[in-house]
């Protein structure tokens, strides 16, 4: 059947043939890339692209690249969603809808995978890179080169998912690829292999990034910033990275074992041979549940910053906020069984995990009340980040209540794998994670780019998202009660579900409009930037250190490392009307040199993944050697990996920047 070839493995011309609609997407993507390359060539920007971006180790630039990738993936995944919604609205009774079942399965698998790994994780790491070093008064992260490598591994994983569109096909086994369906016997194609390797590579990148930021926060805070004086965003990142450090190795193991099952015939999760598929489900959720907190905690941190800034009050209950974060971090590892109450673990086990799940809602509630108390009697300014926050509070509370319902095993037996569940987790992910990241992007955009975004268009965008969300997902809650299961691409007319599916489909168009507005308003904002320029680096009357430097900040963030004495140091300084900055003595600044090594590692990792998927093993070996040799050269080369900006040069740069400021 499948003939393995020495040179090209299982890769044949057939792998490039697809349904028309997929070919269209592939051609579109290829054309977009070509157009981009042509533009760069025309503008003679290749050298600039290489030295300023591709080889950069500056977290601010890496952050921008993360976010660009994530937004691109949001658009791709958005297109997937529209197709799914169209299918579910039309495929009823004798009509088979617009796409075949096999494609529908790939769509929901790709959508879930991309949204979690390449949109939500990408936005999160992007914002962390942009903001965290600035917020803790640091010039850089602990391991800048490792940071760049993390980004390129993320990009390699993203590339693999998208290549599967054109060469072969993607997994049809859902975003978590449960066995036995994902085993070779039932998924003999390359789809699940694409899934495994894109997640494995991106996941290792995330693990390294987590170690990096954890060390950064613990070792690189500016003088005076004790842990209990850290901004809440930094606290949330600390907790999230801690979770990631413990969760991602489990993902690495799980994916590796599934790969071994498929590649060399081990029996970890197989039906026969002494395998245990329940073990897979346990392992993947031992990563998966912490993962949702990894994503949502930084978003909580963003909301904390936004609410305090726009209420012009210190965050209410700082210590209880920290305690809540830490409690969530610990509890996050004790609830994973709620994802499979129906698998027969027994009443006692289910009861325990059900109760733990309800308990974890308590610290989350504490945070909600603290935010509301922060707003209470504040002089609230309703800038757009606050809109996303307000939308979040309403939706997240509804989604949380739905979650507590699902936490009761008896109810879960009714609603497991129904559209009620789909509606629940989208409420949490969209309002919790996505809205939070949007709020953060809008809030910190002026810091990065030097001007504010268009408030009016952003408000339109918000309303589209908010209303669209309700129109999409309220019908799904109802459909879930009516018995509609998830991942359904066809149903009988007698169910009476079609009107609700049509409403939901229309809602997704409203969300699409919101996304389009969100992206297009950037263009408008760029054209209007003369009027929205952030001249003093502090567009929102901010409280924390990132607002004390210019927008955009210099490579070294701060000419002299700040010293802080309390929480909200910048706010305190402004209240006291502190004396004009004394003439400071500048010192030499050491910064890491740019290097393409991170990109090479990412490139080799891509080749490793691709060749393992297609059984082109000779090339796998070469690519692994490539990684090893690159690493060896990097550690044995005696070149300085840092350069120095002399004090005099710093003084010159600073005075020219001051000139801009005045």
């Amino acid at each position, binding site marked *: 059947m499948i003939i393995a070839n020495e040179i090209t493995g299982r890769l044949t011309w057939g792998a490039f043939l697809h349904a028309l609609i997929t070919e269209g997407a592939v051609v579109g993507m290829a054309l977009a890339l070509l157009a981009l390359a042509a533009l760069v060539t025309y503008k003679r920007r290749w050298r600039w692209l290489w030295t300023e971006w591709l080889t950069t180790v500056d977290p601010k630039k890496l952050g921008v690249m993360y976010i660009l990738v994530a937004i691109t993936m949001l658009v791709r995944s958005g297109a997937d969603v529209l197709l799914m919604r169209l299918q579910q609205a039309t495929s009823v009774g004798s009509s088979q809808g617009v796409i075949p079942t096999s494609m529908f399965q790939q769509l929901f698998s790709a959508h879930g995978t991309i949204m979690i790994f390449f949109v939500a994780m990408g936005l999160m790491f992007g914002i962390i890179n942009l903001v965290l070093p600035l917020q803790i008064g640091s010039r850089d992260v*602990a*391991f800048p080169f490792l940071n760049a490598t993390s980004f390129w591994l993320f990009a390699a994983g993203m590339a693999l998912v998208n290549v599967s569109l054109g060469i072969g096909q993607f997994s049809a086994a859902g975003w978590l690829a449960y066995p036995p369906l994902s085993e070779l016997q039932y998924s003999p194609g390359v789809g699940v292999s694409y899934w495994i390797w894109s997640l494995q590579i991106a996941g290792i990148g995330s*693990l390294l990034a987590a*170690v*990096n930021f*954890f*060390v950064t926060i*613990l*070792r*690189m805070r500016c003088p005076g910033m004790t842990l209990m004086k850290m901004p809440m965003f930094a606290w949330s990142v600390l907790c999230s990275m801690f979770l990631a*450090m*413990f969760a*991602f*190795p*489990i993902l*690495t*193991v*799980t994916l*590796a*074992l599934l790969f*071994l*099952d498929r590649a*060399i*015939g*081990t*029996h*970890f999760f197989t039906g*026969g*041979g*002494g*395998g*245990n598929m329940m*073990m897979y489900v346990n*392992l993947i959720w031992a990563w998966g549940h912490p993962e949702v907190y990894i994503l949502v905690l930084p978003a909580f941190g963003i909301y904390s910053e936004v609410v305090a800034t726009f209420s012009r009050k210190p965050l209410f209950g700082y210590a209880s906020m920290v305690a809540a974060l830490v409690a969530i971090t610990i509890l996050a590892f004790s609830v994973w069984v709620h994802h499979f109450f129906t698998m027969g673990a027994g009443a006692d086990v289910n009861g325990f995990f059900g109760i733990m799940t309800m308990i974890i809602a308590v610290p989350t509630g504490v945070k909600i009340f603290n935010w509301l108390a922060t707003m209470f009697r504040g002089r609230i300014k309703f800038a757009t980040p606050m809109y996303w926050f307000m939308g979040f509070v309403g939706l997240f509370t509804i989604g949380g209540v739905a979650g507590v319902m699902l936490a009761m095993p008896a109810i879960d037996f009714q609603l497991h794998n129904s559209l009620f569940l789909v509606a629940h987790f989208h409420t949490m992910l969209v309002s919790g994670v996505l809205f939070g990241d949007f709020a953060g992007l809008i809030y910190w955009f002026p810091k990065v780019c030097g001007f504010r975004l268009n408030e009016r268009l952003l408000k339109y965008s918000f309303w589209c998202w908010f209303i669209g969300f309700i129109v999409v997902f309220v019908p799904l809650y109802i459909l879930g009660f009516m018995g509609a299961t998830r991942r359904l691409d066809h149903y009988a007319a007698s169910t009476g579900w079609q009107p609700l599916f049509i409403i939901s489909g229309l809602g997704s168009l409203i969300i699409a409009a919101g996304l389009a507005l969100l992206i297009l308003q950037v263009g408008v904002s760029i054209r209007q930037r003369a009027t929205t320029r952030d001249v003093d680096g502090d567009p929102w009357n901010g409280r924390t250190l990132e607002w004390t430097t210019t927008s955009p900040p210099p490579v070294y963030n701060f000419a002299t490392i700040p010293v802080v004495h309390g929480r909200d140091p910048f706010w305190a300084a402004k209240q006291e009307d502190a004396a004009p900055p004394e003439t400071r003595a500048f010192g030499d600044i*050491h910064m890491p040199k740019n290097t393409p090594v991170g990109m090479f590692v990412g490139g080799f990792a891509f080749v490793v993944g691709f060749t393992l998927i297609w059984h082109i093993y000779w090339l796998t070996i070469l690519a692994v050697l490539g990684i*090893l040799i690159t690493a*060896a050269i990097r*550690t*044995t080369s*005696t070149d300085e990996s840092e350069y120095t900006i002399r004090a005099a040069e710093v003084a010159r740069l600073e005075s020219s920047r001051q000139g801009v400021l005045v």
Partner: protein
Amino acid sequence: MSAAEFAAGGQADARDIEVEAKAIFGFWVYLMTDCVLFAGLFATYAVLRDNTFGGPAGYQIFNMPEVLVETLVLLMSSFTCGLGVLAARGNRKAQVLGWFAATFVLGLVFLSIEVTDFHSLVTHGSSWTRSGFLSAYFTLVGTHGLHITIGLLWMAVLAVRIRKTGLTRGNVRRLTLLSLFWHFLDLVWIFIFTIVYLMGAARV
């Protein structure tokens, strides 16, 4: 920081100390994540241990004298590795290279015993495809072996670097990290020795 730097005439300025502290702390954190990875594999092994599916159980295939030799060799390599680091602190380059050569050879011996052992299991029909138990066994022990291989490669590269550039501050730091890694693998092996081999052979 250590005597070595002063002996080497290096100046322990605050920045170097900071870089060093960061690297060592970061490496500890990385080791913790690696620990979680092994914990995952141990858990898998514990679940699948009795799933022999008609194939051999642990006590039927473990060659305990050989495992004991492996263990002693690895323990000894940890010892020589420690001596190497001590020599680096005293800035005795030739000794450092000597001790690490010994560590390297011991590591290689460990690895070759493991590989021959795996080989004979496979040729006797007890490969990883035979049962869930054997899948878990090969994967857990093999992952440790893979780590040892990476450690050996690292050791070789670092030796070249030390020969080229001497016991600089940076090199001593790298050596410290390598020795942390090596001791960590030793520790993991102790768990493998106990949980896989001893408990397997004793049928507990």
